[in-house]
């Protein structure tokens, strides 16, 4: 199993009446709710938390990209990942990912990921999302019906930029480049690639054909994800993929651990409520620009992955959220049992653990993280013994990595000029 401690980086100061007074947490969220001075503390404590998780035995620490979004203040995950690369060691840096259709030209992603891979000593796990409609279309102005074609071209260009040892010309529809020749190149050839998807058949096939891991990043939990993930595994079988390795798939799950089930509710319910009520308050008009999803995907019956439950999240109580699996919460034993259900039920080898929830303060987040790392994770390590050597979907760091603090002592520098400096 590969466990990644993941932080969406929500803004923790959305007001109590956010739902009533504001129409959306995303795209046209009121900028007056953002306080840059407070953001200084927020970013630094979130990065501290990621670094802490990096010391607790997780396989990876994860970041992602959103724009104009009150629950994800990371328009550039690469900036955060660069900071983490310097302050962590051994743990995978899961950047899930860069919305490659948004970069002009997309070789920028090839370059920045190569930098991250070199700085971190080969610890990058790369993600290439199409990007949500909110981010890609409404915030970044991409034409919905052309987004996927542009994404595909960006992907092909990045892969070739990483692998072709010679300068080449790229005469694409969306990119014209006469001299593609990126410096630096990534350590990993190529870094493992995870593709976040929301149930489209095209994305299933894209992952299967390229040996990429398919990630379902939902906030509605493992029980509701069953049909979608089954669709993926059916497709894996239909396309005669060489194996059904669980590492071909990943799943994001909100997890809260305490000493007892009751304690979990007492400690975490207000933060879970903050997330589902305020952070997921997205105006319906931004959910799915017409043309963004393919006709085939709509016809398979999938509503937008951002479509809320029929009565909305606001009507869901702690009991509803935990029983329906949106959130896995409780004592280490409760969480272990439910995680087993998730892992077996969905056949997923990569878990993106959403352990910071809404406006959760750092002490509670550390408590939950520590309990998960020490009392849950070890019991879940060997869920798939048949595939324990399947490293195709994970980073392969250098055996000996450079560490910060490599400079010589000042007196050694002085010795260069006879000790007279």
């Amino acid at each position, binding site marked *: 199993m590969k466990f990644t401690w993941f932080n969406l980086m929500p803004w923790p100061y959305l007001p109590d009446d956010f739902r009533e007074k504001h129409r959306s947490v995303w*795209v046209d969220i009121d900028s007056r709710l953002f306080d840059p001075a407070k953001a200084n503390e927020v970013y630094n404590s979130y990065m501290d938390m990621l670094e802490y998780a990096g010391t607790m035995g997780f396989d990876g620490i994860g970041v992602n990209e959103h724009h104009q979004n009150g629950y994800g203040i990371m328009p550039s995950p690469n900036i955060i990942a660069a900071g983490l690369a310097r302050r962590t060691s051994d743990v995978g840096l899961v950047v899930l990912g860069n919305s490659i259709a948004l970069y002009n030209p997309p070789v920028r992603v090839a370059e920045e990921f190569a930098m991250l891979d070199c700085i971190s000593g080969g610890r990058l796990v790369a993600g290439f999302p199409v990007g949500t409609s909110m981010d890609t*279309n*409404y915030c970044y*102005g991409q*034409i*919905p*019906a*052309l987004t996927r074609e542009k994404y595909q071209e960006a992907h092909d260009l990045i892969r070739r930029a990483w692998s072709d040892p010679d300068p080449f010309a790229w005469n694409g*529809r969306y990119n014209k480049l006469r001299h593609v020749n990126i410096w630096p190149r990534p350590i990993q050839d190529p870094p493992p690639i995870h593709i976040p998807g929301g149930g489209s058949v095209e994305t299933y096939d894209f992952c299967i054909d390229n040996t990429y891991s398919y990630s379902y990043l939902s906030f509605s939990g493992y029980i509701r994800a069953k049909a979608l993930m089954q669709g993926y595994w059916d497709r894996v079988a239909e396309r005669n993929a060489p194996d059904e390795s669980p590492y071909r798939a990943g799943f994001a799950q909100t997890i809260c651990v305490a000493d007892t089930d009751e304690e979990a509710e007492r400690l975490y319910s207000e933060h879970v409520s903050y997330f589902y009520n305020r952070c997921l308050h997205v*105006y*319906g*008009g*931004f959910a799915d*620009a*017409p*043309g*963004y*999803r*393919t*006709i085939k995907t*709509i*016809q398979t*019956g999938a509503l937008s992955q951002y479509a809320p439950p029929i009565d909305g999240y606001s009507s869901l109580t702690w009991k509803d959220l935990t029983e329906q699996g949106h959130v896995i919460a409780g004592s280490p034993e409760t969480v272990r049992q439910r995680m087993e259900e998730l892992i077996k039920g969905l056949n997923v080898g990569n878990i993106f653990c959403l352990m910071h929830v809404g406006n959760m303060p750092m002490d509670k987040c550390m408590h939950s993280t520590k309990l998960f790392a020490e009392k849950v994770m070890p019991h879940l390590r060997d869920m798939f013994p048949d595939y324990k050597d399947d490293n195709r979907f994970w980073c392969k760091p250098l055996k000996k990595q450079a560490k910060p603090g490599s400079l010589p002592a000042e007196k050694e520098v002085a010795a260069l000029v006879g000790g007279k400096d």
Partner: protein
Amino acid sequence: MEAKTVQTPHVPVRYFEGGKGEPLVFLHGAGGITAEDPFLAELAKKYHVYAPLLPGYGDSEECGELREMLDITLHTWDVIDALGLKDPILVGHSMGGMIAAEMAAIAPNDVSRLGLICPAGLWLDDHPIPDIFAMLPYELPAVLFHDVEAGTALMTAGVALDDPEWLKGFLVQNARQMGMAGKILFPVPDRGLSQRLYRLKAKTVLVWGDGDKLIVPAYAHAWKKAINGAELVSIPEAGHLMTLEKPEHVAKAISKLG
């Protein structure tokens, strides 16, 4: 009106044909058009009307090859060629007006009479056009109609949101149609037309609803200024979908083209 199909180099094109008189080609707006459209019926009283559907609209085939303004402009010329028409009266509503104006700018010697009904295609920073791509269906009547109540009744006829099959059909149609419209209207409906309008040689009639809340009447004046000799006809108590609200008035304005 009779539904027919004509083959063009890229894709078979669905069109409605009816009426007798001089040939007139009508290009619909982003919402599409049906054979029962009251404005087509009005036009057909005086003209031989051809109303082609943009690929993806109604039951017509989609066309991935059409990606940008130039593709769509030339495609629509292909349609006119395929129909065997030469210099028909060219009329367009909203998005269709944008396409018609582009066609006239790119081939000014082939369009001598042009009718533009509250066309899209210009952008005024002081009057940002509401983002129809970010509106929920129930929000649309308020910007599309002068008489919002009547417009709502028109738009909600046959709607069955609690029927999953109906909903799927609606989402598919919306993705096909508005996905196509988005290629020239999203996220800002300006593809540089303002710098090409000087090329127009056609006798041009602009028709605008006084109550247009989508592309407000300030745009009517911008268009009139940009097209040499254009005549502006204002229709009182009419909104953006005035071809539905005031079909006789709009058809009368178009008849000024001859």
